[in-house]
């Protein structure tokens, strides 16, 4: 009986050690990476989900899954893309679940609350922008945010969203045009 208990303990300890070893990143590296990426990732998640609290929850889940992935990365960009890919998939899962619960749940209710301290024009501009973004498809929101807020290249965006790089350019063009129209920019007759 004691032997069995001891074997159980040994197995449990081994599993615990394995789990700790599963975090390829050490604490110091993780914390530095977190400081560099957390705010940007939170903004991305908040924009995708339209919910600040949900964005915080997803942020923690994203970093946990990132740590558990135990993958090795070639460089900072590769690591960052992986993080955003996890976040995108989590946000997509949440959206699917919420769609199953309630089909008409408007995105952007929570995020429309612009914090006080801004002038009226800025607040109105931000509200218009939020409403326009909320009317885009989630994938369009994600690709525009990655392109113009995060400055990601087409290849990086395709990698994060699981798209073919060749098909990204026309999709990005359409999403940009759609947002421009929603923001009140009339179609332009000029040529590039």
């Amino acid at each position, binding site marked *: 009986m004691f032997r069995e208990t001891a074997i159980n303990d040994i197995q449990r300890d081994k599993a615990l050690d394995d*789990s700790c070893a599963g975090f390829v990143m050490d604490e110091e590296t993780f914390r530095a990476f977190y400081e560099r990426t957390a705010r940007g990732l939170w903004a991305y998640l908040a924009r995708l989900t339209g919910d600040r609290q949900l964005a915080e929850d997803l942020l923690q889940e994203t970093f946990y899954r990132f740590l558990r992935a135990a993958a090795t990365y070639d460089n900072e960009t590769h690591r960052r893309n992986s993080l955003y890919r996890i976040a995108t998939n989590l946000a997509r899962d949440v959206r699917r679940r919420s769609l199953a619960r309630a089909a008409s749940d408007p995105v952007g209710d929570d995020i429309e609350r612009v914090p006080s301290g801004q002038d009226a024009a800025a607040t109105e501009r931000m509200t218009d922008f939020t409403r326009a973004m909320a009317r885009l498809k989630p994938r369009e929101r994600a690709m525009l945010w990655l392109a113009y807020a995060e400055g990601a290249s087409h290849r990086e965006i395709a990698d994060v969203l699981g798209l073919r790089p060749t098909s990204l350019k026309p999709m990005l063009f359409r999403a940009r045009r759609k947002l421009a129209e929603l923001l009140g920019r009339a179609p*332009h007759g000029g040529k590039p």
Partner: protein
Amino acid sequence: MKPIDCEMEPDILAAVLQGRWPERVDASLRDHVAACAICGDVAAIAGAIDDAREEMRGHAVVPDSGRVWWLAQMRARREAAQAAGRPITAVQAIACACAMSLLGACFGATSAWFQSALHRTAASLASIKLQALLPFAAAFVSEHAAPLLAMAAMLLVVPAAVYLTMLRE
């Protein structure tokens, strides 16, 4: 075919993201944006998104990195302990079933009352004529075919569903 990109796009984007647009750029770039549909959209969209990004990053309330690390460690440990405990639980269940069977066998082999009851049951079963039961069974099956089929299906589906659920978990 309608163009979907412009070679000046990166310059416009860089100017917007660096805060140089529109005042601190060449007049030629401004003229181009005024004439180019694509760059016009890029300037408008990138400016709006950059403003939103700044606003959101400024008000972002993210948990402390140390707390996130600590919670991740705790969760990993808890999940590892659960994973390690799962096979032990299965082994314990099998061991318990074996012990019960052994106990039952010992009781059966040593109990006179159990032996006599066993002999009585065997004798009564032998006296039953299966031929006589067949018409009754056939009538029962034909009368209650649907519920019987449903029960049979349940017997097959439920264990499979339980197995698949446990496999997923």
